[in-house]
């Protein structure tokens, strides 16, 4: 979500900036300073200070990199987020293509179905997956009643369950960004390719996919960042055996009461997300630079 930039403001009636403009801006700035900027600053500061003496120290970071558990948590978080990003994009693509191109009356239905889960809240959907995937849930019950398996398949409390749950949570956002991107592709290109004898498959491979790369990238980015920062779904579907940074942070705050270490983990999560967003922004910048170069050559 961090990659969405503000549209350039259109030209407005020229009005000299006045103090009143700053006055109306003040409340937002005040709220964000008090409940965002300062807390973030204090938290980052805490991660570098000793709990007793308040002297600056890297000890908490050393612990993060050496205890073996935190890095494992970071790895699980990254792994989970990558898998979610991939599956959201793969699953979202056909729906997005349909939404972008179809003019049938089913479009509204598919649109509603695709986006409705977003309104249901994370808990409902996670709870749904919980009763489907649990050891004694829907699927395992059915399999065992049919005598297909003797003991429940390990469908919950692991990477699989968390990825399934999060894919479901994030999918609407992936679909939206893919749809926007595919809508931006000129349908005439597809038609032209087909008339020149390209099969449907090669149209998809050589025209649509390459042109929708920006949408794919933004879908990957949104899914990655949303998955990495999710709390409830990994907590409920991952259990004790699949802990990610978000659930570990919660545990440090509300069980071990080790605030400084929680701060370190929070910073690690933040850095990971900012890195990914940065890569996305750089990609976007390079692409537009390439495009303007090309256009420059042509003219």
């Amino acid at each position, binding site marked *: 979500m961090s990659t969405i930039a503000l549209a350039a403001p259109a030209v407005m009636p020229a009005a000299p900036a006045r103090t009143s403009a700053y006055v109306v801006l003040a409340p937002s700035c005040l709220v964000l300073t008090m409940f965002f900027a300062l807390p973030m600053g204090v938290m980052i500061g805490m991660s570098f200070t000793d709990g007793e003496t308040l002297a600056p120290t890297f000890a908490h970071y050393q612990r993060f990199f050496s205890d073996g558990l935190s890095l494992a948590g970071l790895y699980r978080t990254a792994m989970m987020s990558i898998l979610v990003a991939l599956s959201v994009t793969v699953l979202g693509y056909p729906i997005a293509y349909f939404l972008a191109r179809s003019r049938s009356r089913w479009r509204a239905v598919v649109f509603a179905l695709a986006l409705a889960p977003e309104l249901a809240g994370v808990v409902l959907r996670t709870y749904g997956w919980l009763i489907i995937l649990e050891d004694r849930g829907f699927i395992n019950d059915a399999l065992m009643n049919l005598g297909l398996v003797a003991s429940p398949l390990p469908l919950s409390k692991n990477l699989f369950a968390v990825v399934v749950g999060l894919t479901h949570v994030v999918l609407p956002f992936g679909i939206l960004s893919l749809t926007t991107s595919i809508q931006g592709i000129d349908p005439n290109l597809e038609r032209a390719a087909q008339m020149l004898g390209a099969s449907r498959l090669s149209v998809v491979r050589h025209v649509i996919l390459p042109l929708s790369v920006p949408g794919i990238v933004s879908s990957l980015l949104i899914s990655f960042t949303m998955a990495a920062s999710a709390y409830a779904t990994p907590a409920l579907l991952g259990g004790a*055996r699949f802990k990610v940074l978000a659930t570990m942070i919660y545990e440090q705050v509300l*069980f071990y*009461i080790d605030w400084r270490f929680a701060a370190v983990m929070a910073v690690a999560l933040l850095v990971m997300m900012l890195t990914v967003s940065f890569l996305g922004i750089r990609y976007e910048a390079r692409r537009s630079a390439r495009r303007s170069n090309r256009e420059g050559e042509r003219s």
Partner: protein
Amino acid sequence: MNVNRCLPLCLVLALGEAPGPAFAETLIVNSYGGPYESIIEERIIKPFEEKSGIDVVYDAVGSAAQDYAKIKATKGNPGFDVGVMTASQSLQGCKEGLLEKLDAAAIPNLGKLAPRLSEVAGPCGAVHEVQYMSLLYRTDKLTSPPTSWSSLLAPELKGKIILPTFQNIMAVFLLEIMSVARGGDMIDNVGPGFTAMAELARQSIGFEQSSAILESYIKDGTVWAMPFWNGRAQLLIDQGVPVDYVRPKEGTIPLIATLNVPVGAENKQAAMAFIDFFLEKSRQEAWVTGYKVGSARIDIDIPDDARKRQITTEADLKSLKLPDLARVADKLGEWGERWERDVVSQAK
């Protein structure tokens, strides 16, 4: 656009205070959910409300450790007046000055508790129940009752046991008792305990945090044996579940539950009154027979069969192992990491 007109009305409705008796004093009690909730509601809270005219708001959120974290984050003003925690948090909270010291002047019934038990919880905790970690098993699945904690490792129980997560103090107790069973001790030499827990983890179907979820596994027969608080175990027997529990030969560790008042509680007087009420002889009898636990009051009259299986006497208590809870609390961080590394990683 009628909606436009009714919107302000909706806003007023939404923002207005929730309906409820604003005149009565309210006491916020933070405790546990599940069966605990319905029993405390019926046997303690309702009678207390009737007697005192104080309105009790019951909050079932969080484990004892999580409640304590909230107390700490809010420097003793977590928003509840009475917390139901355990002796560990009572000691820790006293040391850190986050829990109110309780005395017999404000809570006369405190004087009626067995001194040895009261001492365990320190000056900030009022012991309102005593349980112990028992070994619970399915009578219809196991041919003979287990006698030792090591029975959990029997081949026939492969994939038929479940373990508590480290956030549940039961995990720590099991670790310690396994350590003792394997020749270690309860604080400084817990290595043997971790080795044993790793073996148990390989044997188990996984970890769950709350007692309510743990017991659901033995209820439906997925799990055949597991460690469990004996009071809750007795409740299962009374419900007709084919289970029974034993105190294995290596001994076990008691769970000493306490009522605590955070230093910043808004309603201390009512909190003290509530604690005193809970410790009254008749209420302790009601609690002991309702939640099937032991009491720190030795003067209570309860049926013999209840007494037989609970901790109600000093002699009962002496037969239990009691780690130094304050030192255990200091070790939690270290053990938690080791648990993740050595135990959780071993589960299938």
